[in-house]
């Protein structure tokens, strides 16, 4: 029953809030978020103690019905969803745009995200993803600003096209397996005799999922959607911190499902490395604060992908942990970027100066998040990167990780320029809700870093330990790359045209469709060769 609560409580409350014309009711939504947070923690503890639970809606047979399944990964992601939405409501409590319509869309999106994390049925996932795509497009163009209209439209068309690929893949899956339930398909996967029939459905499903998680050729919609200027910053938080994780979650599930018959980890590993590299290169050249953060999302998703596909339990759990860590620090970065943009009235990083003097508190928390994303010792990013790196020790992948980290550092050195310099001296007042949200997130960055092993053993029941010597070595590597990054930025990169003028990879819809097609052909051909 508790699983239904996660879905129905937000939707029903959202509808009621939309219908009741009373402004104070938005506060009710905040109270509701507290309740959901408590419920998700209870659910997590219950599942950790009693094992996964599964319900089939309407008590049909599982092969034909829609099942909701919750294991520890889903339960943790539910907690994450509740946490990020709680922080968003806390942040936006005093803001004017939080009207009843906005809250309705926001709560519906929360319910849909939770269904994606809970559902055990692929067709259900398709339906929910489609609906949430529409809601996200509406949220992107909520202010009907001329730029966000294009961004929202592009988001809608590309993502719907990707989900149609997914749908056709589901057709193939049903033809082969006679069911669309993930666990049933996973069990039947061992009985496949001629594995080549799996190549087409795999390619179709992966093209859809690949666009959702912004893999290498398919990422060009993401920065536009996540960083569209007029969208409220909490929309960017939800998209970049949370919603993009739905794609990665689907990737984890589908990969697991196909694993007995079809393993393509090596190819996705290469895609992950390239995604990580191209993400930070493009991030370096941006001038728009939100754009920088959006491109870093791509880069960090590449790291998660490396962790998941590199092989070995250490790297895998490192990747999963990085998923949560990324959600925390990227949300914090977007929240503080939202504060800075609204107070300074510009998004151009070259024009914002002296933030530290004007709002020291928010700046401090932002720096915590930056230390997290660059993997500084004791902060959360370092733990997950440590696990991924010890999983892939000694190979070229470890150097690729160090390279991606170096690029992230250089890009954030550019980002940090806005803290210094002379600006107006007077302090800027920031309301309590915003401060509270930012503080909680900043503390989370530090706590998840201090207790990273505890988090992993709590989440997945897998004992891991950190070798202190290794960790110190990693810390040294971090400081060396920090110095190297600082020198490279100031000596060489600062004056180059690439950094100064900015460069944006603008693919039109045709370009995106062609790259989608290319990705599809590539995956299908690779699967044929492997099988």
């Amino acid at each position, binding site marked *: 029953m508790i699983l239904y609560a996660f879905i129905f409580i937000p939707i029903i409350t959202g509808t009621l809030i939309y219908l009741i014309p009373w402004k104070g009711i938005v506060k009710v939504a905040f109270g509701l978020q507290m309740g959901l947070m408590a419920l998700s923690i209870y659910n997590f503890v219950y599942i950790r103690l009693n094992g996964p639970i599964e319900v089939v809606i309407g008590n049909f047979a599982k092969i*034909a019905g829609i099942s909701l399944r919750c294991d520890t990964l889903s339960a943790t992601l539910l907690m994450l969803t509740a946490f990020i939405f709680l922080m968003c409501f806390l942040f936006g409590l005093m803001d004017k745009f939080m009207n009843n319509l906005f809250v309705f869309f926001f709560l519906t999106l929360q319910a849909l995200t939770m269904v994606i994390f809970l559902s055990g049925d692929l*067709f259900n996932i398709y*339906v929910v993803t*489609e*609906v949430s795509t*529409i809601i996200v*497009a*509406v949220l992107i*163009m909520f202010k*009907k600003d*001329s*730029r966000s*209209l*294009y*961004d*929202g*439209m592009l988001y*809608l*068309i590309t993502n*719907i*096209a990707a989900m*149609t690929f997914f*749908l*056709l893949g589901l*057709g*193939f899956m*049903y*033809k082969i397996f*006679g069911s*669309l339930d993930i666990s049933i398909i996973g069990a039947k996967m061992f009985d496949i005799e001629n594995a080549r029939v799996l190549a087409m459905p795999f390619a179709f499903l992966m093209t859809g999922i690949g666009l959702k998680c912004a893999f290498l050729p398919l990422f060009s919609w993401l920065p536009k959607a996540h960083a569209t*200027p007029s969208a409220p910053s909490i929309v960017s938080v939800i998209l970049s911190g949370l919603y993009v994780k739905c794609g990665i979650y689907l990737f984890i599930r589908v990969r697991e499902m196909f694993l007995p018959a079809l393993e393509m980890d090596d190819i996705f590993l290469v895609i992950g490395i390239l995604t990580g590299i191209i993400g930070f290169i493009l991030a370096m050249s941006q001038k728009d604060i939100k754009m920088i953060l959006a491109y870093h999302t791509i880069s960090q998703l590449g790291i998660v992908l490396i962790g998941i596909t590199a092989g070995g339990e250490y790297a895998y759990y490192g990747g999963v942990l990085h998923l949560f860590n990324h959600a925390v620090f990227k949300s914090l970065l977007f929240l503080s970027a939202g504060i800075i943009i609204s107070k300074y009235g510009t998004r151009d990083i070259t024009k914002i100066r002296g933030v530290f003097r004007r709002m020291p508190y928010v700046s401090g928390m932002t720096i915590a998040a930056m230390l997290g994303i660059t993997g500084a010792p004791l902060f959360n990013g370092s733990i997950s990167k440590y696990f991924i790196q010890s999983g892939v020790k000694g190979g070229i992948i470890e150097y690729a990780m160090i390279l991606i980290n170096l690029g992230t550092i250089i890009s954030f050195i550019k980002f940090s320029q806005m803290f210094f310099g002379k600006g107006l001296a007077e302090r800027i007042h920031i309301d309590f809700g915003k401060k509270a949200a930012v503080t909680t997130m900043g503390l989370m960055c530090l706590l998840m870093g201090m207790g990273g092993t505890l988090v992993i053993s709590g989440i997945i029941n897998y004992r891991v330990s950190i070798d202190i010597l290794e960790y110190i070595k990693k810390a040294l590597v971090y400081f060396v790359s920090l110095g190297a990054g600082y020198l490279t930025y100031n000596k060489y990169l600062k004056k180059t045209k690439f950094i100064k003028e900015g460069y944006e990879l*603008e693919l*039109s*819809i*045709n370009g995106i*469709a*062609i790259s*989608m*097609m290319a990705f599809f052909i590539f995956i299908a051909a690779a699967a044929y060769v492997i099988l």
Partner: protein
Amino acid sequence: MTEINFINAQNTAIVIFFIGVYGLCARRNIIKAIISLGIMGGGAILFFLSVNRGPDSMPPIFNGDSFVMADPLPQALVITAIVIGVSVTAVALIMFIAMYHKYGTTNWLKAMRHRIEREDE
């Protein structure tokens, strides 16, 4: 009579799907992009309808068991897919109308240029 094996519902569905993808790849008109999405969805729907359905199978609406029934489940699923397709098209068209009022063009590239110009203001 020689049977033509390769012209069946399934292959037709895949061809229709990729015609839709071609439309997305090659046309710059926003309305045509929306139509292409509809065509892709149509291909996927036809594929679902043809799953587990032989030439002799009957629609699954009778109670008898003397004949072969088509698999009812994909047909039930496809109704959902059709409804979603309709609503997605409607939403996309409404968004297009709003966009047309702002940009005054049906061309993706011109819309993109407008977007960049506005940014500079």
